[in-house]
């Protein structure tokens, strides 16, 4: 494998990172909305959010990508491939982050809500100043863990036909007939991105376990 091939792989790596960052950034906002809806005291909204989460957790990410990809086209939106794929991953992220943050919001002791209410705080200041800052700390290990899942998940964009790291690997492997070498390198690149995040997530988890003792 020569330098041009390796540069092509790095170009794919750039797209993998770009897709992950886009999906995560969009997923943070929509995931927060999902989590707040899921923990809402208004039952129909909570049910709706629960259904949304259940659909994304109960179907393969690949199918979600296909449905979003073709569905957006049917809805008359002329999007480029990367935009459609990024929206697909963002929706996936919103459901999973929503569920993670629901758990963290519910893990904040009930007395905090009661005390804030007794002080006369309304919903938004209650969430923004009391519940969410504490929930964020609790959710950090799982959120970083999900980032690893998202990074690995972007490889499925390759099946939809988008040239990120894995598809760049397939193209090079077909070109130089050395699939083991190429996929070994591709796997190594993913590992180099995901492993530090996994270690970081584990460290956060241990630190949280110590501090909550």
């Amino acid at each position, binding site marked *: 494998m020569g330098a041009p091939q390796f540069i092509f792989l790095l170009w794919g790596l750039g797209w993998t990172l770009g897709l992950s960052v886009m999906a995560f950034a969009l997923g943070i906002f929509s995931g927060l909305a999902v989590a707040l809806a899921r923990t809402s005291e208004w039952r129909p909204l909570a049910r709706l959010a629960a259904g949304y989460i259940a659909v994304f957790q109960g*179907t393969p990410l*690949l199918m979600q990508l296909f449905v979003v990809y073709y569905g957006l086209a*049917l809805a008359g939106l002329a999007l480029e491939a990367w935009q459609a794929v990024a929206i697909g991953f963002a929706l996936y992220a919103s459901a999973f982050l929503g569920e993670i943050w629901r758990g963290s919001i519910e893990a904040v002791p009930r007395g905090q809500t009661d005390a804030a209410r007794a002080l006369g705080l309304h919903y938004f200041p209650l969430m923004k100043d009391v519940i969410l800052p504490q929930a964020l700390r609790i959710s950090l290990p799982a959120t970083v863990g999900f980032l690893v899942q998202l990074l690995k998940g972007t*490889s*499925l964009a*390759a*099946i939809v036909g988008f040239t990120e790291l894995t598809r760049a690997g397939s193209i090079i492997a077909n070109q130089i007939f050395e699939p083991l070498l190429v*996929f070994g390198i591709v796997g190594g690149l*993913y*590992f180099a991105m995901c492993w530090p995040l996994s270690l970081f997530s584990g460290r956060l988890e241990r630190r949280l376990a110590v501090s909550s003792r």
Partner: protein
Amino acid sequence: MSYAFDFTPVIRGFPDLLRGCAGTLGLAAGGMAIAVAIGVCGVVLRRSRAALLRWPVIGFVELIRNTPFLVQIYFIFFALPFAGVRLNPTLTALIALGINGGAYAIEIIRGGVESIHKGQVDAGLALGLRRIQVFWLVVLIPALRAVYPSLTSQFILLTLTTSVASAISAYELTSVAGIIESNSFRSFEVYGTVTLLYLAMSSLMMMLFRQVSTRWLAYPTK
């Protein structure tokens, strides 16, 4: 919106889709069986006193859990013929699923084994059980029972992961859907229906596992 939905290819292909579901469930069940076997062996090695046995298992778990399944299945797909083993895509996918699930199973089962109190082992030995009996009856079975919920959610995750095996055209639901789609160009209808089929499968599995748990695995509360 001027698009007219046409579900005739989906309806005509429905028997094929159901056979695809069977393929998916078969792959997932086979993969899970391999995964649990790898999990149990992995935990035994992982808890060994010899670093030479412990470290390869740790490395295996980290490697599998930090790389995408798609890359793993491509690697295995090309590595097997290189090692002189010729298998059809479906069997290759089965092995890849088993290896992938195995890494997660090791971590899950390890958690269960570590939750068994050391006093239990001492008690078993004091009763005159042989080491292998202690491992099987006192450690492994209660450990598996303790991690049953995590193992079954891993099983459902593995079932959803089988759709990635369509990349090497293994026989499962997503591949079948891909064939119907490329013959009819009704992409949204086909993949929408298939998504619902996956949802039905995972929901049924969840209900079934919960039933098994409450009926046979729950410890009496009184």
